[in-house]
């Protein structure tokens, strides 16, 4: 009797299975990139001559040890923080040299002169929880972004993107050099209109 050859297993569908797997993973894998809130710390050396800042140009936000929020010495809810900050930054109460021609605020005498002078001072206690602190920071950054978006859209109405999207596009390594060159001055103008002056002060109670 002739030797029977072993039957060959049909492996033609193997490619299909492999492709199916490949597509599945292509869809489900998210290439992890970290994201977060960028901040800049003040340098260590003490300034010899600290500039005098008028009280009305400072917007104090204090997060107490019980995670309560004190905005300008008054108890506030975090939901209102964004609008309060926008109101303060966009006030434009200054006159003469300090006038702000693009501000749409109330021009209240007792609030900030112009966005360049306006400083948000964020204080926290050692017992404040980090997540609340981040939530507050997030809302303050949101206030800046809201105003920057508004001005960016006003200055570049036919670009079709707002400030945040434009910044994202600028940071994207896939954006071509030409596009980036084009975006940079536009972004810088808006950044200059509403500079992010957010100071993170030391803890209010320096407990040992």
């Amino acid at each position, binding site marked *: 009797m002739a030797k029977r050859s072993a039957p060959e297993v049909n492996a033609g569908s193997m*490619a299909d299975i492999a492709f199916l797997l490949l597509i599945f993973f292509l869809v489900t894998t998210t290439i992890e990139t970290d994201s*977060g809130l960028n901040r800049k710390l003040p340098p260590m050396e003490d300034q010899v001559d600290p500039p005098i800042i008028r009280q009305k140009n400072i917007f104090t936000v204090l997060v107490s040890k019980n995670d309560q929020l004190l905005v300008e010495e008054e108890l506030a809810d975090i939901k209102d923080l964004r609008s309060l900050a926008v109101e303060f930054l966009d006030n434009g109460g200054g006159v003469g040299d300090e006038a702000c021609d693009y501000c749409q605020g109330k021009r209240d005498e007792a609030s900030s002169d112009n966005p360049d002078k306006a400083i948000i001072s964020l204080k926290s*206690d050692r017992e404040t929880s980090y997540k609340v602190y*981040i939530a507050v920071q997030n809302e303050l950054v949101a206030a800046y972004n809201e105003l920057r978006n508004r001005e960016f859209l006003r200055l570049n109405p036919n670009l079709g993107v707002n400030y945040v999207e434009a910044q994202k596009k600028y940071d994207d390594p896939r954006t071509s050099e030409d596009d980036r060159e084009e975006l940079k001055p536009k972004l810088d103008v808006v950044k200059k209109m509403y500079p992010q002056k957010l100071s993170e002060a030391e803890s209010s109670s320096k407990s040992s």
Partner: protein
Amino acid sequence: MSKFKKKKGGELPAISTASLPDIVFMLLFFFMVATVMRDSTLLIVNKLPAADQVEKLDKKDRVMYIYAGKPSSRYVDKYGSTARIQLNDKFATVSEVGAFILAERASKRQELQNVLTTALKVDSETKMGLIQDIKQELRKVSALKINYTTRVGDYTQNIN
């Protein structure tokens, strides 16, 4: 006529599997590119707080990571449950942060040394005291660019 004669047996011709290695290699390369190696094993709980006004932290070679949080459950017996700092693979005290930053900075390329960002990956249940201490140390070594690493989400998730 032999021209129209049917093949004997009618056996299926073996399908070529020559493309199979290609496919497998394609998969392999895809995962090689897409996988991010976690370079330090976490000894701490690291549930990041949520924020939505975030900026991306591209260019991994310009980032130094500082982790902080409570030791994870299997280390609680050994290290207690107060929040701690983790640098690379081990726990550290606040005073070691400065040396760590200087060492990290020295290990980077010359042209990157001025543009480094410190990413603070801090667990949401941490108290600000620890973070303020870290920030103070960072200021001492003038590592001023920091990034509070968060996950993307609405801020209300942080408040309960």
